[in-house]
């Protein structure tokens, strides 16, 4: 049982909410491992860690909780095992969000975090969550290098995508172009630069946002839907151009399973 004496600011109802919460983290890599670690420390009642991949040697410098002894073991399993004794329950799922069983699992959650590499995966995850009216928090970090290997830019995002509000497409985080680029990059197999410290910064803010959503600890605090990280300027700012109004991509009235019955009339 977690000692919550230093968490009294979350309020009795907020703590009860955490004790009952069902949260999934999709992507147990550089960003996701920080999120899993923090949620485990908060003793979230049901914490599902989803990742199909195994730990590689090149991951260990940023995969919180993993060591070189874990190479070739599934990431989700390693994290669930490592953070298991902190008071909550962790459940590793070896699979992808698009698989039927995993999708159903995500849709029964109170909140889903996405810390995945690819834009198509982000897009799919958000669609799964919006269909079931499940809030989705997405984090991502991109370090852009010049041809000579110098740092050209460091950008990141934390998107809190709630039903009705702006989605990753409204905010320009996911576009058809970057999904296509994604595919090209994947084919080329370029290793993308990442670093533990910046992943941790984005993950910490994402978990703080989740606490605000789940416990309302800040009263009538309004969480910005989109925070933009600039690693060269050392800033984390709300997107000043967040679209107002309801999301046109996922209208609330169209949530749920809308398979339309095919009625055949006798001719």
């Amino acid at each position, binding site marked *: 049982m977690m000692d919550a004496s230093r968490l009294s600011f979350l309020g009795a109802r907020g703590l009860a909410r955490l004790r009952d919460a069902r949260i999934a983290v999709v992507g147990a890599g550089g960003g996701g491992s920080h999120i899993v670690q923090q949620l485990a420390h908060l003793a979230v009642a049901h914490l599902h860690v989803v990742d199909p991949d195994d730990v590689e040697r090149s991951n260990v410098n940023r995969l919180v909780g993993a060591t070189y002894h874990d190479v070739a073991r599934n990431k989700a399993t390693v994290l669930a095992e490592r953070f298991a004794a902190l008071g909550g329950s962790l459940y590793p*799922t070896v699979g992808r969000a698009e698989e039927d069983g995993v999708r159903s699992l995500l849709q029964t959650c109170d909140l889903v975090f996405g810390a995945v590499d690819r834009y198509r995966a982000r897009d799919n995850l958000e669609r799964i969550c919006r269909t*079931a009216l499940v809030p989705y928090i997405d984090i991502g970090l991109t370090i852009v290098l010049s041809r000579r290997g110098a740092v050209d830019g460091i950008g990141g995002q934390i998107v809190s995508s709630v*039903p009705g509000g702006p989605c990753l497409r409204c905010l320009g985080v996911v576009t058809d172009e970057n999904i296509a680029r994604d595919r090209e990059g994947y084919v080329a197999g370029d290793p993308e630069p990442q670093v533990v410290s910046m992943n941790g910064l984005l993950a910490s803010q994402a978990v703080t946002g989740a606490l605000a959503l789940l416990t309302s600890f800040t009263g009538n605090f309004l969480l910005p839907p989109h925070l933009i990280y600039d690693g060269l300027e050392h800033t984390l700012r709300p997107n000043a151009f967040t679209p107002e109004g309801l999301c046109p991509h996922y209208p609330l009235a169209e949530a749920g*399973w809308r*398979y339309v019955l095919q009625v055949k009339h006798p001719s």
Partner: protein
Amino acid sequence: MLRWFASLWGWVFGAPDSVAAPLESMQRLHITRATYQELHARVQPRIERGEPLALLLVRFAAESRQVLVAVGVIPMPETAYVSGPDGANFDTRAVVELANRHLASNTGILLVHSHGGVGRPDFGDIDRRTNTEIMAKLAIGIDTAPYGAMVLSRDSATIVAVRDGALVEADLVVVPSFGSSGILA
């Protein structure tokens, strides 16, 4: 105790590579805060209507049917109320007609009313009879849309929805809403 045993097992024999997630036979209703507030407003007693009824439009989130999502609120049409001995009497044809109209988009209906007060409300005897004899029967032969009922208090709710032919309780999950300047938890 079970967890202690599991850790001892893991320590002695090594942890399993994949642990099954707890996919209980749970049923949940996900509703945005804005829709929930609208629902409350629709069933508040008024001078002209002491116990107003509302119909919550719901769909399954997916084929698994574990999660219901609320997609809209319709007040019970004024023409559907009929006089009778109980608090709120209505012509069932109005509900059947609405159910039929929304079925093509896999949309079902929860019949909603309020008992006021605070704490977890319970369905009364007449409510239970209505749930069994009307709402559960709407689901006969239909597995693409959910049907059931919901009773509200000021700070809680009790929900039943048909699952495998029987009315089963569902947990209420109120989802944060989006306002013009950000997300209100």
